[in-house]
């Protein structure tokens, strides 16, 4: 059964089939959530919320883009909203430790690098939705400009412009 047929089946009342979508995409959603916010949120909780929101948004899903792209956009928005509400302070030991190439960095450099990475994660969520979506699809999901243009129903020049501006804005935010 194709993706469109599965979605139509769910919209026709066969709610139990939604579990198939969850099983197929939950790992990707969890990975994306982890990339965007590390341990600052409970990844399981965010993943659940993404799929519940996906279910209510299914009637609005247009088959111009892939379901995975639609799910990524919901994930980014849910992470952004939950981080804005979250007051949880992550103990230092629980923070994501980014790649520490000990042969290249001493302890102090490693700490600085870790902080920069966390700033980058925060800056990503401050981009506007279109820039963020384009950059996440390009940088994290290995999609080409053409893939992104096709899935989002954007022109190729729009995709190029969004990614260019997203990177510029990230550099500005990180150097402030």
């Amino acid at each position, binding site marked *: 059964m194709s993706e469109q047929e599965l979605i139509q089946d769910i919209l026709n009342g066969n*709610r*139990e089939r*939604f*579990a198939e979508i*969850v*099983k197929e995409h*939950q*790992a990707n959603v*969890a*990975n994306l*959530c*982890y*990339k965007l916010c*590390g341990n600052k949120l409970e*990844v*399981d909780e965010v*993943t*659940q*919320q993404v*799929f*519940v929101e996906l*279910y*209510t948004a299914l009637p609005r899903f247009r088959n111009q883009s892939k379901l995975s792209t639609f799910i990524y956009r919901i994930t980014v928005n849910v992470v952004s909203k939950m981080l804005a509400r979250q007051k949880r302070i992550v103990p230092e030991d629980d923070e*994501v430790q*980014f*790649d520490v190439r000990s042969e290249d960095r001493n302890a102090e450099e490693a700490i600085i690098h870790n902080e*920069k*990475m966390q700033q*980058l*994660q925060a800056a990503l969520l401050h981009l506007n939705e279109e820039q963020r979506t384009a*950059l996440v699809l390009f*940088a*994290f999901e290995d999609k080409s400009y053409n893939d992104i243009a096709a899935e989002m129903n954007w022109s190729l020049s729009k995709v190029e412009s969004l990614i260019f501006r997203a*990177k510029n804005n*990230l*550099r500005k935010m*990180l*150097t402030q």
Partner: protein
Amino acid sequence: MKNTELEQMLTEIKDLRYPHTIDVVDAVMEGVEIAEEKHRQAVRTHRRIGWTIGATGSIAAAVAVLVMMVGNGSPSQAKGADNSRLSGFISAVYSNPPADVVYYDPDDIDILLGLDE
């Protein structure tokens, strides 16, 4: 910040993987059921509000018609007496919540039907 530095940082984020097994299927299906139930309740509440507004509006319109009917054609003294009974009836209608079945006093029925002129 150089382009290459940003690219390296983005690649580092891209290589992150959630280090635990995730299985949220059961929790999601429960959440979906709750979301559907909330939606059904919202629809029921919306319909109830609509019915109440509709019923109140209908009663108000009927009363307005009666007031206009009684105001036309009765002798002034009889009209005065009828109007005071009618206003008592109107007050009773407004002060009582709408009911499925309304019991009218036989005299009030005569007023409603214009049979006491």
